């Protein structure tokens, strides 16, 4: 009777550990100061065994941290040293290569002790408000300009906080109180995880996690390997060209499915960019792995064993494996394009599985607002930094339209317009779907969106653009058409660029059209019901029905008549 009963208890404990890391992540969301954490979920949390193997990771969080988190704790153990780990210690880093890809992400690791024995670790990562340097943007030429660098070190030893270190941090960042608040939030959330874990261990009278880790890891490994074994053993190449900063960037991948692993090699990918859009390998690994897991093993939770069979590499000094001291602040701009590149190859091995290309990169921008300088500014004007998160359209799926204005692969949310307008003297004049931007197809690409933004009376601003898909829109699959490209312009007619900081004078607005996802299947195969729905809702205009779907004027007129009849 012992064996099966153990099984039930272990299942319960695995469930519990997933719940524990979820609690850890929720606590972080509630206490963090950075907009990207609380509104957009730019964070992760996980629990580890004493060897640094990740046992569970919160579902809440963004895919960009997946592999980075799995690898991080091992770096901490190595750097801190096995015999230098004490109860009451807290460690941290923002090393882009040993953490999660840029200086703005701070990872905090806390050793977990039970009955005076090290039984595991908790780790969490959050994107902080500010880390000094040039501020959040692509304009640095090396990581030295991007802000304060914190090597793996102790934030606290045996419960004693390192005050000198905190003073140093305070002196080097723009929002010291908030940053310290974020460090508190990270530390607290690990404490919450630890407390819950110990409660579980007491309930089940465990003295260590070895048995449960073995159970989690072996079941995850076996499940992942079973999924991989079901796939055809084959290889294929994929590639995608994207805007880059000044010159286009080519992303290339060779994908090989073996009996027990998947090899993903980005050889042939463009070299480093001069600007801060380069990607450390951990981030490339995260998004490549995320893309593969979505397509192959979506229900298997992330842990060291379930991630291990995905072997992802890129040549050193390529834009997908930038080494120190390359600038990497906006690594997401390129990193978000990794899944579509991987899918370009995977589609050749597993047809009818992956979506057509989508907007990919989030359509984020930052506004640095200040009192107007062309003439005397009114008294009630002020300075403010406003960062917004927005999404273009997702690619159409083999049996479904793409999602309108929805982030993929990123997991972030947008902020309410009303909240953004309270955070600084900005006005968002328009934020709505962009008709005709979804690539035509049997299944239509998701629509991108229009935005129109300006400052309130008496202000001017710098607009930091972080957009892609201006020159290279999302490409369709199986005969589906491309999605609409990104456009950016100033209301006074002045041209603007997809990337970089650009001045916007008093009274002018920035007009934005965010990209649509691409279509899947031939447009001529789209069902009449779907076309009528597109026309009725204005997702596709009559002109585009003619142009992209090849409908005649008469056909469209007939559709319009039937819509009118149904409305009355």
């Amino acid at each position, binding site marked *: 009777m012992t064996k099966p009963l153990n*099984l039930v208890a272990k299942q319960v404990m695995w469930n519990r550990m997933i719940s524990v890391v979820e609690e850890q992540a929720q606590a972080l969301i*509630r206490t963090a100061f950075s907009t990207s954490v609380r509104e957009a979920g730019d964070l992760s949390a996980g629990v580890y065994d004493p060897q640094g193997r990740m046992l569970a990771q919160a579902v809440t969080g963004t895919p960009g941290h997946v592999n980075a988190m799995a690898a991080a704790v091992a770096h901490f153990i190595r750097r801190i040293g096995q015999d230098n780990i004490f109860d009451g210690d807290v460690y941290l880093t923002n090393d882009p290569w040993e953490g999660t890809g840029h200086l703005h992400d701070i990872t905090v690791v806390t050793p977990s002790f039970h009955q005076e024995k090290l039984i595991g670790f908790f780790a969490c990562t959050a994107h902080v408000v500010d880390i000094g340097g040039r501020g959040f943007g692509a304009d640095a030429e090396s990581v030295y300009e991007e802000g304060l660098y914190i090597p793996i070190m102790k934030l606290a030893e045996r419960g004693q906080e390192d005050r000198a270190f905190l003073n140093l941090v305070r002196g080097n960042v723009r929002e010291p109180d908030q940053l310290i608040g974020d460090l508190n939030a990270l530390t607290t959330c690990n404490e919450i995880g630890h407390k819950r874990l110990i409660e579980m261990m007491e309930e089940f009278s465990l003295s260590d996690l070895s048995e449960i880790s073995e159970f989690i890891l072996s079941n995850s490994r076996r499940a992942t390997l079973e999924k991989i074994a079901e796939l055809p053993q084959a290889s294929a190449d994929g590639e995608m060209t994207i805007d880059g900063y000044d010159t286009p960037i080519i992303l290339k991948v060779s994908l090989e499915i073996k009996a027990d692993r998947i090899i993903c090699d980005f050889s042939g990918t463009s070299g480093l960019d001069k600007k801060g859009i380069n990607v450390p390998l951990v981030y490339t690994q995260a998004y490549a792995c995320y893309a593969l897991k979505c397509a192959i093993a979506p229900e298997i939770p992330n842990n060291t064993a379930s991630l291990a069979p995905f072997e992802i590499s890129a040549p050193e000094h390529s834009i997908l494996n930038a080494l120190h001291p390359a600038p990497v602040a906006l690594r997401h701009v390129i990193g978000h394009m990794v899944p579509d590149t991987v899918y370009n190859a995977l589609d050749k091995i597993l047809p009818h599985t992956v979506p057509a290309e989508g907007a990919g990169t989030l359509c984020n921008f930052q506004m640095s607002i200040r009192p107007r300088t062309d003439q005397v500014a009114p008294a009630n004007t002020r300075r403010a930094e406003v960062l917004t998160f927005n999404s273009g359209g997702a690619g159409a799926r083999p049996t479904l339209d793409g999602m309108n204005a929805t982030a993929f692969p990123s997991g972030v949310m947008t902020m309410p317009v009303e909240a953004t307008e309270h955070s600084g003297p900005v006005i968002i004049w328009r934020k709505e779907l962009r008709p005709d931007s979804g690539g035509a197809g049997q299944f239509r690409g998701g629509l991108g969106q229009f935005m129109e933004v300006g400052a309130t009376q008496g202000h001017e601003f710098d607009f930091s653009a972080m957009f892609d898909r201006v020159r290279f829109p999302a490409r369709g699959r199986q005969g589906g058409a491309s999605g609409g490209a990104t456009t950016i312009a100033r209301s006074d007619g002045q041209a603007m660029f997809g990337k970089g900081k650009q001045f916007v004078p008093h009274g002018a607005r920035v007009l934005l059209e965010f990209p649509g996802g691409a279509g899947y299947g031939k447009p001529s195969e789209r069902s009449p019901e779907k076309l009528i729905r597109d026309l009725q809702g204005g997702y596709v205009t009559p002109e585009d029905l003619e142009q992209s779907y090849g409908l005649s004027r008469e056909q469209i007129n007939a559709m319009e008549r039937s819509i009118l009849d149904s409305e009355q």
Partner: protein
Amino acid sequence: MTEHKIRMGVDIGGTFTDVVLEVGNSQYSAKVLTTYIAPEQGIIDGMQQVCTKARIAASDIQQIIHGTTLATNALIERRGAKTALITTQGFRDVIEMRTESRFEQYDLNLQLPEPLLPRQDRYTLHERVAASGEVLVPLQRKQVEELVIELKGKSYQSIAVGFLHSYLNPEHERLVRSVLEDLLPDVIVSLSSDVSPQMREYERFNTVVANAYIKPLMKSYLDRLAEQLSDQGVQCTIFLMHSGGGIISLENAAEFPVRLVESGPAGGAVFAADIASRYGLDKVLSFDMGGTTAKICLIKNQTPKTSRVFEVARTYRFKKGSGMPISIPVIDMVEIGAGGGSLAHVDSMRQIRVGPESAGSEPGPACYARGGTRPAVTDADLIMGKLDPDNFAGGSIKLDSKASAQALNDEIGSTLDIDALTAAYGLVEVVDENMANAARVHAVENGEDLADYTMIAFGGAAPLHAGRLCEKLGVQRLLVPVGAGVGSAIGFLRAPYSFEANRSVYMRASEFDPSAIKELLNQLSEEATGFVRSCDAQAPITTQYKVYMRYAGQGWEVPVEVAPQQAQEPKADEFIELFERHYKALFGRVVEGLDIEITVWSVNATTPKLSTNPNQRDVEPDVKGGDSSQLSSAAKTVGLRAIFDPARAERMEASLVNRDAMSTSEFVEGPAAIVEDETTIIVPASRIAIKRADGSIELIERKI
């Protein structure tokens, strides 16, 4: 409330309509099937049954309180009226674009829920109010008239109006209403600044759209109900239970039907709160488990926790984000897909998963022998010995143990190489753990530690699982009250008249403006009190003030209660101190050096809580230590049955006791099963069960 008042509570649920009649200290209840086409018919049938039982006439009833799931169902099933939305130019798609995110990150074929109104029914006007409340672009009446004339040809029954920042300045929304009243007098209008004057356009627009969408349906239903009850001779006033756990008038309910969403479960929480006050318990976890879902709610100081936004109609495994947000005052409940009918399977990691998929009533769990072949929670309960196959639902359904064992073997046992009993044990442990996790997370989110809580369990499946849940949560005390099967309807009879008014007004502690705050809170207080006064002209009304605060730069507000006197003379340092105290309780430490923001202000006006049976408030013997020697005598055991005890991980010989045959203060030691017609209370080996004077069964941790 000592006079013999005759009151009736009616709860229309998805399957059953429950009617409870109280005549003085006597209670009569009836359960009839909900009739979807004419839900009022179920009420009439139930009313006739209870009136006959009580030997009174319908005209003797002095008050009727009604709660219903009709509003929720209309939203889930999209059975609302032809509705249009008028919104700010440039923002036509707010309710469709949602949060621009995916609620399930790893599903490539994810489908987002459709907005309540399709795109062609969403219209825009050129107007704009700024975040300061000032008008940036004035709305021209002529433009409104042109649009309204366009709408005239499209036979809309209901129109929602939602403009940006209207919670600060409702003038433009009101102008649209006045034009609509002139040109389209038959159309029903809802303004976002009336329905939900809170910041965050997606939530506010969705709430006003939901209100408009169900308003014609609910209004016609409420009118029909009033008429038919009157035809039956009913002469008293009818009130409605709202989502916040209070009662409003029929007229107000018809105006703001979105406030009726989740009123049934709210009644359940009020029921638990009433038991809590009878026993003088300040910290209670209510646990309601039925056929498809379980609901968990924290009740502090005999008042259920409330929240100001929740999600209705989740489309994807009860997942957060897969439904639509409704921002109204609501009892804060966690609902998970775990009930007696929840089905189990084994996933690719060889792990047992349970729910949210449910066997429903057709075909039902395998043991119903109506064609169900997959194991449900009820099947596992049966195999573990928690249920008697010959005495389920008072013997009305004979359960087929063989079918349960077969289903457990096929779906779980064969894959994991375990026998049916171990599979049942695994299944039940997983579902109990899911519920325990939900409770733990909810407690942590509210800064509470469940160790000193008492659980109150009701709903058909709850007594089978509550004991184990207490073990898992470290909860020492559990009460299973009488009438647990019609708990919501009884709860309606205990609810006060109440109304909560909320408004978003942004203020920093560094720019604390006492006179503005006083004025705002007074306005809200007047609004809330007005609603309550329309129900009861005399009763004393108390007001509770709550403000939502956070550190500048955070996105999550902490609700902070402010005393009436502090609301009348607001002082910055007092508000800050209150906030810091709450923040510390939640997150362990305060943050130095940061300004504090107040974002939402809320006033709840309420009449005193009702307790129709105050004489039942009895002094209980103190048996917290679980020492049975203080108790009078052991209850009569009518038999023995082998029941699997999950904490001991073994089958144990359990005593069987009839609940009705137990006298006050009689006890039974676990492992035991206390049997009644509606359900069975499982007493784990770790507990002892005592019958209380009010008929409740109390389970407490045993001294070893």
